[in-house]
């Protein structure tokens, strides 16, 4: 039990770095120490949650990869804010095909 309490009170992520990121957010003036600590803790919880949901959605339960992550980011509503930084990958061939298709559709309509 004592160990769990320790985990709750200690920060795993370096708070100096958390503060640097927070201060880079526009219009942020001051951050209380408690707010800094809680933001660090929330980020820990977030990393755990993201790892877990990626694993749960993976068909290969032993190996979790980028695709599993991109899939949950695409499907879970509360992860939508990550869609630009964790996009689904498509093969170059698929992309070129879809480009060609939209060009042809444009030609047809003009």
């Amino acid at each position, binding site marked *: 039990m004592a160990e769990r309490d320790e985990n709750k009170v200690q920060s795993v992520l370096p708070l100096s770095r958390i503060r*640097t990121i927070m201060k880079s957010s526009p219009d942020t003036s001051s951050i209380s120490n408690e*707010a800094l600590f809680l*933001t660090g803790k929330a980020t820990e919880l977030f990393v755990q949650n*993201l*790892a877990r949901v990626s694993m749960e959605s993976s068909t290969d*339960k032993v190996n979790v990869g980028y695709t599993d992550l991109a899939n949950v980011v695409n499907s879970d509503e509360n992860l939508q804010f990550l869609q630009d930084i964790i996009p689904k990958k498509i093969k170059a061939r698929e992309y070129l095909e879809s480009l060609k298709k939209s060009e042809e559709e444009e030609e047809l309509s003009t």
Partner: protein
Amino acid sequence: MAERPEDLNLPNAVVTRIIKDAIPENVNISKEARLAISKAASVFVLYATSCSNNFAVKSKRKTINAQDVINAMEDMEFEQFMEPLKKCLEGTQN
């Protein structure tokens, strides 16, 4: 690539440890996925800060406080974080 004076990345070793503690021992997460999770964590901090700041501004304060962060979690649809965060806060106040 220009050198940024501020490093907005979180240390990979720490992020890896948090990930490993969250999943069963026999499960592997690729390096690519771990790096993406680390980037996501930085973006999460920015998003949380922006939401927290909105609450502070609404209350006409210039300093973001603990309650602002907890309220931000609800706004961001991470309600499941609210109770654990409240417990963490209580832990530091004893």
